[in-house]
């Protein structure tokens, strides 16, 4: 038991610190000091025989209390160095913190290298990363690397490529009731940020454009206004798992479609329960026309009407791009004004019932269909409401 505890303590110590390799052995290292002349953070091992120097290339603005901030790690293996954003909260209209790639801490080539506000946050983030003072939303893997000891080791050598820093101001998030950062993950996912690291994950080329174009979402180049998923959906385990794991690692386009469609299934099931309860809440058996009642119940059971309700009443969801792709997939007249709910339902039916007859053109459309379908699903999750219905 004692030996097990010792081993567990050693493992915990490794996990809670950066480490380097030297002569085949690994050494956990701990922050010792900052050298103002050489502009390096100096870390040493327990025996003070190994010294690691991590350069800090930005101007050090050290006048903010790091205890006022929480740091989370996200991942985006095609992240752009210049994608440095202030993160705002859409419902409360508050600034929560900053979101930027770790690369922005080890380079002075981006647009914020002279920005005082960013420099303050950068100093806090850098020190937290050096001390491994971060939160991981998915703990199934270690986001750290163990590099070989060099004359200098860059901070980016100690973390996976594509590491994104999400740093939140605690006083700000404390004003938001029931704040959970995981509720914002689907929104952040649409920009390629996820809680799990997958080096082979390809980001759709349109994701990069989202940052450049002035889209309908208030997502301009300098800030992102994030919205959480609907309160009614925050306990749904499947949704959390979808955006943290499943979509990150599932490559096959048909399976990805199925996974996304499961959200539709989940929500139309909720709609069924909601409408059913309403019917029974309003029921007055004395005066009720039972034939009409039967008709209402039958209607509530049908899938397509529930889909229509989902897209038009319980959310307000449109996607002309997805609609056109579905028309192509179904080989329908491109000028058809068939609505999105029916079209997405038809695509789903084709995949379920006629998979064996799909042609190569249909397969080739699946990646684009999934991209827009993801955006639709994220919008649906955020805007789903049962109020006034």
């Amino acid at each position, binding site marked *: 038991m004692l030996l097990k505890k010792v081993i567990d303590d050693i493992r915990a110590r490794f996990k809670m610190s950066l480490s380097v390799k*030297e*002569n085949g052995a690994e050494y956990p290292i701990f922050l010792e000091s900052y050298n103002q*002349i*050489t502009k390096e953070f100096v870390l040493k091992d327990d025996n003070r*025989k*190994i*010294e*690691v120097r991590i350069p800090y290339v930005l101007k050090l603005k050290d006048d903010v209390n790091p205890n006022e901030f929480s740091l989370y790690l996200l991942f985006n293996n*095609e*992240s*752009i*160095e*210049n994608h440095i954003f202030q993160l705002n909260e859409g419902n409360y209209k508050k600034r929560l913190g900053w979101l930027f*790639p770790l*690369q922005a801490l080890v*380079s002075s*080539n*981006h*647009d914020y290298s002279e920005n005082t506000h960013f420099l303050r946050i950068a100093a806090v983030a850098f020190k937290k990363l050096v001390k491994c003072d971060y939160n991981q939303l998915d703990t199934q893997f270690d986001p750290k690397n163990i590099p070989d*000891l*060099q*004359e200098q080791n860059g901070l980016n050598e100690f973390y996976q490529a594509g590491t994104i820093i999400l740093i939140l101001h605690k006083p700000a998030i404390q004003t938001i009731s029931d704040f959970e950062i995981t509720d914002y993950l689907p929104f952040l996912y649409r920009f390629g940020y996820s809680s799990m690291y997958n080096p082979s994950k390809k980001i759709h080329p349109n994701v*990069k454009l989202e940052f*450049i174009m002035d889209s309908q979402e208030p997502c301009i*180049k300098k800030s992102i206004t994030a919205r959480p998923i609907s309160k009614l959906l925050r306990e749904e385990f499947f949704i959390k798992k979808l955006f943290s794991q499943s979509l990150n690692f599932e490559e096959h386009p048909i399976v990805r479609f199925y996974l996304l469609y499961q959200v539709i299934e989940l929500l139309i099931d909720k709609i069924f329960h909601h409408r059913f309860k309403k019917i029974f809440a309003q029921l007055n058996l004395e005066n009720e026309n039972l034939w009409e009642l039967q008709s209402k119940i039958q209607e509530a059971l049908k899938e397509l009407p529930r889909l229509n309700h989902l897209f038009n009443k319980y959310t307000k969801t449109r996607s002309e791009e997805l609609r056109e792709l579905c028309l192509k997939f179904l080989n329908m007249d491109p000028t058809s004004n068939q609505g999105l709910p029916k079209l997405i339902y038809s695509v789903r039916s084709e995949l379920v019932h006629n998979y064996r007859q799909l042609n190569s053109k249909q397969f080739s459309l699946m990646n684009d269909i999934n991209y827009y379908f993801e955006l639709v699903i994220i919008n649906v999750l955020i805007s789903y409401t049962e109020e006034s219905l």
Partner: protein
Amino acid sequence: MEILSKLMDQRINSLNFLTEMSVEEYLSLAKKILEKNEYQRKRVKKSNTVYALLKIDLVKGCLIPPLVLALPHTNLEITNEKLKAEIQKGNLLILDGLQRTYTLIELEKELKDKQDTDSLKKLYQQKLRIEIYFGINRLGILYRMLTLNTGQTPVTLRHQIEILYLDYLISGIDNIKLIREAEDETPDKLGEYKFDDTVAGFNSYIERDELPIDRLDILENIQGLEKLSKEDQNVDLFKEFIVTYNKLVLKLNDLSEGWIFDKEQLTLDGPPFGANVQKIFARSQAMTGFGAAIGILKDRKLIENFEDVRGLMEKIGADNVSDALNSLIKKLDEIKHTSTKIGPAQRIFFQYIFRELFNKEGDSFLNLNGAIEKGYRRYQSQI
């Protein structure tokens, strides 16, 4: 100090003196050396087990292998007495034995702190053999430093360059001023560059790579060594590199006719890479791109040497200089907004520009507009 032997190293055109001196004398000399060259002060902190054992052995009177120093000097005709006087000034470099030197200094301090006067006296009286290379040839010294560096404490090529050329920080080169990073000064006049950036540029030339990796393993440095070995050892190559680059900057400045970035004319998403020619080309990305490009062209026998490049510069032209520079700024801005790592991406772009500019078999030879356009297309094809 006693001079035991004097031989000529024909390979690097330097005299090699084998000397013998006491540890006390060496320590006095070593402290002067380390004081004068801040880059030799940077100690690579590796596992100290080996050096801890060395300290114990030194106290017991062990003999350590010869340390190797270098004394850059213009005149190879020198008497032994004059050599001793030069050595005492301390303007030397430690080619091999830096960590052993630090070990001796630390041991001296430990014995003083313990007030172990007997051991200290014994240490001071021990003899050391010191080889001293004496001669002008820095490139030869760099070559010798790398080939000697098969010891336990590897040092990167870049670090060796820093050590070797540090005195240019003080003296400058012709009308070129080199600025130290620690001074927080930024180059803002023509002919001014950060010393670190010039070292990076020169390193890129030797490695033929605008993104040289700092390799500690001597075997991984072998390609750089092979390139060095083919260079004319009688030429101060670092000086050639800086002078040539500066000439290019001056030429481009002349061509620019006072061009300054105008935000009314060109809309960018952030600050420009540089607001004028000096600001653009004083940056590390441009210098490393230039170094790598010239190295690659030399390997392909499209240019002979830096003198050749300087000769070509007079003929550089541009259809419309303002358009060319605006195009360059715009492309650098696009790279900034689309790259996972901005610095390396911009270096690659500059490398392609200079390769196009000085490639006599290319369509954009000595044409600035063409070189920028073609360089960008080549950059895009690589990403």
